[in-house]
């Protein structure tokens, strides 16, 4: 395979993983909720695109609809289940695992356990460094980048973001200063779910859409945020770059099976040796 293609495919994987890890990290860092249903939110996003296509809507309508619909599911899940486990960190693992089972099976009942595929809009291909490259994949990268930029803007340029960062720093104090943490939690969880939904929608033409589609993303995304370090928004992005980059590189050099083993083992080593994450030192200085 051409080196430029390998590089672009790697960048693709990294940017998608960044989007997934970002949603997971916001929920983990802000709310102290370990969301094992995050992969299922991604899976739901892909199914929204599928359903929109079946309803006769254009592909891009499905992509726009997915974050809204999945965000609504997240809002509902937060209200009904997640908020009851806030004070018990490890129980959030269990509650969200139950949620993920329910979501997987609900989709399996609605759409059957088999896999679907949606066609990417035909945008043609461009010549890059002498080999053709599908434009849709470049669009995927652009969507990921703008969603990441948008999330940064949300957290560093709005009052919502200011309040959210105050809650990350000191929840009790933020609450004393009149920040409605209850409302903030609700919307944070919804934003996290919506990001996963958007990621699922954008990758939907590139994957087989089945009820298990989200599971494979969960562990890499978790490893990415732990490798990069919690507490800052740049940490998970760096972690995703490391995890996704190493994965693509090993997959290109050896095989996808080896890639997963190498990435997981390397990530476990990093997490063990630097539990605060690779970016921890820089954060402390700032």
């Amino acid at each position, binding site marked *: 395979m051409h080196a430029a293609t390998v590089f672009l495919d790697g960048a693709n994987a990294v940017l998608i993983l960044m989007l997934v890890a970002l949603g997971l990290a916001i929920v983990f860092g802000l709310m102290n909720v370990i969301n094992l249903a995050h992969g299922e939110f991604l899976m739901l996003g892909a199914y929204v695109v599928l359903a929109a296509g079946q309803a006769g809507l254009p592909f891009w309508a499905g992509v726009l609809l997915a974050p809204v619909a999945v965000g609504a599911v997240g809002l509902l899940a937060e209200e009904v289940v997640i908020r009851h486990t806030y004070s018990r*960190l490890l129980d959030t693992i269990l509650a969200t695992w139950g949620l993920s*089972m*329910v979501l997987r099976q609900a989709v399996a009942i609605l759409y059957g356990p088999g896999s679907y595929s949606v066609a990417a809009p035909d945008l043609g291909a461009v010549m890059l460094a002498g080999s053709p490259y599908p434009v849709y994949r470049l669009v995927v990268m652009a969507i990921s980048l703008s969603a990441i930029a948008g999330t940064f803007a949300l957290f560093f340029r709005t009052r919502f973001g200011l309040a959210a960062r105050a809650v990350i720093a000191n929840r009790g104090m933020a609450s004393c200063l009149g920040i409605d943490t209850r409302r903030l939690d609700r919307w944070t969880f919804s934003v996290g779910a919506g990001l996963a939904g958007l990621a699922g929608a954008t990758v939907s033409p590139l994957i087989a859409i089945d009820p298990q589609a989200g599971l494979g993303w969960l562990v890499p995304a*978790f490893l990415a945020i732990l490798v990069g370090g919690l507490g800052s928004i740049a940490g998970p992005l760096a972690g995703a770059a490391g995890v996704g980059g190493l994965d693509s590189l090993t997959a290109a050099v050896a095989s996808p099976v080896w890639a997963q083993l190498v990435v997981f083992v390397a990530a476990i080593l990093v997490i063990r040796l630097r539990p605060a994450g690779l970016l921890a030192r820089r954060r402390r200085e700032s």
Partner: protein
Amino acid sequence: MIPPRTVDRVALLALLGFLGLPLVAAPWLIGDLAIYFAYGLLAVALAFVWGHCGLLSLGHAVFFGIGAYAMGVLTLGMLPGLEAVRSTWLGLVLAVALAWAAAWLVGWFTFAGRGLHGAFFGIVTLALAVVFERLATNWDWLGGLNGLMNVPPVTLGLNGGGTELWEPLPLYYVMLAVLAAVVAGLTAYQRSDGGLALAAIRENEPRARALGYDTGALKRRAFALSGAAAGLAGALFVVQFGFASPTLIGFALSAEALIWVALGGRGELIAAAFGVIALRLLESQVSSRLEAWWPLVLGLIFMVVVVLLPRGVFGELLHRIARRRGR
């Protein structure tokens, strides 16, 4: 904390009930229960590290799977140079020893020095489960995706031959005896000084360390002990099931075990064992009728229990019994 006396009495009553059960129950139920007891061993092992030591392992099936594969490899005569060795007894020893060693290594790696805590430990064990599943799937010697087939049943002879144990009734009593012995042994350990120190670590690790306990070594020992119990469970599962596949070692069974223990009750070993037995019985009764709806219902039950009954169904029941007796 539930008073030991209540737990002991309930456990004794349950044991008597299970001893007498074959007199009234159908043979198929006895055969099923013998397998559920193997799952029960895994649940007890997980409840010990999670409920008592506060170490939430999201990959405990790794040790179950190691036990199952070790037993299969040995009794199928697949060990290079040792093809003639087919003893069930040696298989048990190998399964427990390998699972113990693997758990010890994981414990050493994760707890030494500053160590990993809580959710970080959970996610690392989750990743390990995926790694082990991948390894088993891609290792041709272990049968790859198909796993090891035709694992022989328990043979009482020193090296393979002798009486085969495959009828439900003897298997049932053997499994019940093993489960009861493991629960009794781990309970005794929980109530010993070492066990008390582990409970102290669960409640407040820095304080336990400040009091002079080598918390890393204690946690490692407890985790290895639990791994050994899970390995025993895997070995005793595979001799009944006859088939070791990568699904036994990976994330799916680990998550299932987590559900059993959370539903039954992580705080007491017998609650966890009751949890898996009850859940499996329920599943065998209703899953054929509910079909695809069963996993959905199970997920809903699971969420409800996690939110409303953090002690688990049987843990809550034991707690209520103890409170009534206390009054």
